[in-house]
């Protein structure tokens, strides 16, 4: 008897909640956009599960944009954590889709997390998504900086890393500058030389954009820069055909993306087939070579090459980021 009564009480509560939600919907209060694409809780590309969710979110946006290039609503209410690489990739992808479908209008539903909302404002995503701007007050947020461009321009360094001039050793600062120039060079010269194979039309031959963030946290500086090109695993065979042939000659299976990234680094180090080239990708790893606790990660398509504590490790994910993202993390000088 008690169980039946409990069931009836719960049923009445549920019906009353549903009716209330319906009434709100019909009045437009707290109107939920039923076809909004929900962003995951964590925006990230290094953790396996969070990466899958982040890339799935991006893929859904691409698919909807290609089917219905009008207004697209992105629901970030669930988002609680944003790692710089994942955040940068999302910013870049949204800009990219907008470049392909100029008539598209992105509308964002802000995160419930105040800190996340502040980050959105700080990196310009609130403006892009037509969300209300909020001032950055959280100590983890005020130090996010962003830039993007479509040429190799060293002056952009100041936008993102200028405030840290006194907080980095001279050697580290010039290494970061070198790595940044090399990353821009890769984006502008090589990344967009073929179809990205993301299922969307090409944004145009002039499109050679890179995006960059910096973030200071707990006495360390993170810098991330990305392009949405074909990725190192696809550009290496084009740029260094004979190196690529040697790489695959002794293998029983096709080389992984991480192996391709490592091969690209070796090309730069040995400057084989230089034909008038600099050190290339090797410069990117060398950025933290003088810093014992520095970390460098080169993410390209499904691969990752990581240099940490003097050791190089390779890792392959299931899903491709369809581009290249470089991550540096290094300590700031104590004042």
């Amino acid at each position, binding site marked *: 008897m008690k169980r039946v009564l409990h069931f009836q009480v719960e049923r009445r509560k549920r019906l009353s909640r549903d009716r209330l939600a319906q009434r709100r919907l019909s009045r437009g209060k707290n109107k939920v956009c039923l076809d909004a694409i929900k962003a995951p809780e964590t925006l990230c590309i290094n953790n396996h599960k969070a990466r899958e969710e982040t890339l799935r979110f991006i893929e859904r946006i691409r698919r909807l944009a290609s089917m219905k290039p009008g207004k697209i609503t992105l629901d970030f209410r669930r988002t609680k954590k944003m790692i710089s690489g994942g955040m940068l990739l999302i910013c870049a992808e949204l800009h990219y889709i907008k470049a392909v479908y100029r008539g598209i209008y992105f509308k964002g539903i802000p995160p419930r997390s105040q800190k996340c909302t502040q980050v959105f404002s700080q990196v310009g995503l609130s403006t892009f998504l037509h969300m209300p701007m909020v001032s950055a007050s959280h100590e983890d947020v005020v130090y996010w900086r962003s830039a993007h461009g479509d040429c*190799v321009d060293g002056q952009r360094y100041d936008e993102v890393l200028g405030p840290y001039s006194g907080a980095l050793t001279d050697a580290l600062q010039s290494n970061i500058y070198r790595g940044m120039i090399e990353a821009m060079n890769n984006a502008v010269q090589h990344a967009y030389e073929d179809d990205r194979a993301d299922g969307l039309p090409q944004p145009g031959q002039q499109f050679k954009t890179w995006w960059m963030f910096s973030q200071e946290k707990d006495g360390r500086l993170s810098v991330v820069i990305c392009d949405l090109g074909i990725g190192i695993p696809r550009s290496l065979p084009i740029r260094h055909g004979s190196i690529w042939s040697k790489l695959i000659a002794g293998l029983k299976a096709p080389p992984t993306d991480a192996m391709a990234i490592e091969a690209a680094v070796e090309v730069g180090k040995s400057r084989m087939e230089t034909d008038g080239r600099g050190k290339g990708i090797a410069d990117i790893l060398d950025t933290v070579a003088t810093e014992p606790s520095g970390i460098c990660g080169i993410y390209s398509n499904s691969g990752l090459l990581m240099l940490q504590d003097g050791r190089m490790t390779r890792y392959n994910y299931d899903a491709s980021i369809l581009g290249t993202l470089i991550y540096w993390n290094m300590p700031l000088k104590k004042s």
Partner: protein
Amino acid sequence: MMTKTISIAKDFSRYPGGRFIKQGPWSGELFREQVLMPAINSGNKPVVIELDGTLGYGSSFLEEAFGGLVRLKGVSAKTVLSTFEFITGDPSLIEEIISYVKDADKKK
């Protein structure tokens, strides 16, 4: 004859860029054409190049500027290395430049 000194930071840019002019401002190609070639053509030796004061150098910039003198402009490595002297607090930059010049000479 007075030694000519060129400070890249003051006479060119504090922000050396990428390789080619078409890629963006203050490229290695621009530096070669605007600064290095006129210095070579003047016949004055040595020409001192101050490397310090910039934010840094991409390897593409250095290779295109100095290696490009040999690869593209037909200047001999011997002429390049006898014309230019370098001042910097980072000797690895000088080694790098010399290696680009010598490598370009080998590939001729």
